[in-house]
């Protein structure tokens, strides 16, 4: 049953299984285990970024395509919701229209970029995606009347998703089920389904062809596989998933702007999540996204405490001051890439072989 859900792609390491179960249980029970709006916000972000990183791994890890346009597709999802909700109104119809249009735009862009540029060498493809993504970001900030420009768009969502909404009269397990919690569970469930769908894709015969192409495209061609077609389909699937991640994030934040969707900083974050977690394994995306978002949100708090605790010692409190959190985040990344060149998942799995 579980093997079927995971498409036969089991974690293959006890430690990895334990960590994944902890992440799953924590996310599933987040509103009850970690009450409070900030922790719920972190949990929602983790869910969305797991999908985003997994969809990027479909390209980078499984197909060997380096694309810098992934945040563009994520942004298209966000702007699809923003423009529809803002233009039509806060109802289900608008949401459906927004999602459908966003998916259509992403699909067309992914096919065009793929067919035009996937036949060229990897570095040129990367450059082309960078150019298209930059052009899109400029467009989003210049078309102020439609996108809200640099300020972005805030909008209301259907009543069910609003904080004032109550699903039950009585609190459940001491927590009243508000529209926020309902939204969280929609984000969580959709993310889980999307992740399982991604697992299905990479473990299908289609996914095996992608892996073969990653290893050697000429051999794959000599077996009769049309590499450009397979790469383009992988790009389209990945773009579609990123778009849906953007939709989920937009529903959660009720705001879409260039900084939260299209910025190059997010592209780098996704890249780091995939690399740190372990390329070519979707579980790596889960760990990468979880660790990254947690560090982004809680490293400062931890450092504040450490700084206070070491207040008597010279230099240490200054080094551990919460303002230095980016320095420590950077050091953590350098160390993790250095010590886990195959990512955390690769490390955990090879640990099993030695034991």
């Amino acid at each position: 049953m579980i093997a079927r859900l995971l498409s036969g792609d089991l974690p293959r390491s006890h430690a990895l299984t334990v960590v994944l179960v902890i992440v799953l249980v924590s996310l599933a029970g987040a509103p009850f285990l970690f009450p409070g709006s900030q922790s719920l916000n972190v949990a929602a972000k983790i869910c969305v970024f797991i999908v985003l990183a997994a969809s990027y791994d479909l390209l980078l890890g499984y197909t060997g395509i380096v694309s810098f346009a992934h945040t563009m597709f994520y942004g298209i999802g966000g702007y699809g919701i923003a423009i529809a909700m803002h233009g039509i109104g806060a109802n289900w119809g608008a949401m459906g229209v927004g999602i459908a249009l966003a998916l259509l735009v992403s699909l067309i862009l992914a096919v065009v970029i793929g067919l035009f540029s996937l036949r060229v060498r990897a570095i040129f493809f990367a450059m082309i995606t960078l150019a298209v993504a930059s052009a899109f970001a400029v467009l989003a900030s210049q078309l102020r009347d439609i996108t809200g420009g640099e300020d972005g768009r805030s909008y209301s969502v259907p009543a069910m998703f609003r904080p004032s909404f109550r699903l039950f009269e009585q609190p459940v397990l001491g927590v009243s089920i508000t529209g926020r919690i309902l939204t969280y569970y929609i984000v969580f469930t959709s993310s889980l389904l999307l992740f399982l769908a991604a697992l299905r894709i990479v473990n299908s015969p289609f996914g095996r062809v992608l892996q073969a192409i990653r290893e050697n495209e000429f051999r794959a061609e000599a077996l009769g596989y049309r590499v450009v077609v397979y790469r383009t389909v992988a790009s389209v699937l990945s773009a579609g998933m990123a778009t849906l991640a953007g939709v989920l994030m937009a529903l959660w934040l009720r705001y879409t702007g260039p900084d939260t969707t299209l910025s190059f900083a997010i592209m780098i974050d996704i890249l780091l999540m995939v690399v740190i977690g372990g390329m070519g394994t979707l579980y790596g995306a889960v760990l990468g996204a979880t660790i990254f978002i947690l560090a982004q949100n809680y490293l400062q708090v931890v450092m504040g405490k450490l700084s206070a605790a070491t207040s008597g010692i010279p230099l240490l409190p200054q080094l551990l001051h919460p303002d230095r959190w980016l320095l420590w985040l950077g050091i953590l990344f350098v160390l993790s890439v250095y010590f886990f060149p195959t990512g955390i998942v690769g490390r955990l799995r090879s640990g099993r072989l030695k034991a």
Partner: protein
Amino acid sequence: MTTPLLSLSGVHTHVGRYHILHGVDLVVPVGGVTMLLGRNGAGKTSTLRTIMGLWRASAGSVTLAGEDVTQAATPAIARSGLAYVPENMGIFADLTVRENLVLAARSGEIDADRLKWVFGLFPALEKFFSLAAGALSGGQKQMLAIARAIIEPRRLYLVDEPTKGLAPAIVANMIAAFRELKASGATILLVEQNFAAARALGDTVAVMDDGRIVHAGAMAELADDAELQHRLLGLSLAKHQ
């Protein structure tokens, strides 16, 4: 005379600014093993790559069963019934033995009887069926590469130096496997440096030098003519026995 399965006429190939093939004329008849011999750098691998469309012929034509495939794309050439075993194996190391074989099956499923036959030729593959191909030994990788080519019947098998760098016992296994493939009625174009293997398998032979075919004929004729061997290949059988 019946139409040959594969024929190259006046094929020139350039790779970058290097002119590698200088007008190759080669005929592979239906059925049996055609050996493609020649010293290192003579253009044997380039000929196979040009047939597969991995390198584009700049002049001349490649005809498969009467159909011109000179400008066809590699996947189309493969799908028209060619199986190619590149030099240094060309297996997918990250995938399992099974997945490697499934990739080569057009239907996405391996025929059970055919698989049994392949396991009969290469028992090691049955043992390591679910193991990552990268973990196999050199000889086993070569077995997998050949198994992948023959997992479904094809019109023509192009095989590039299957015995290179292998232990004698495995070379014997390879020769036995090709014998059996040949007995099943297959057509094989085999590039080989090992003259003993070539003599054991070949029906017809073509010898290359400097990007051209310099000799073509029956294998037995070349095998019996020490002087010809010496002139074409710079070797004598005596040294190899």
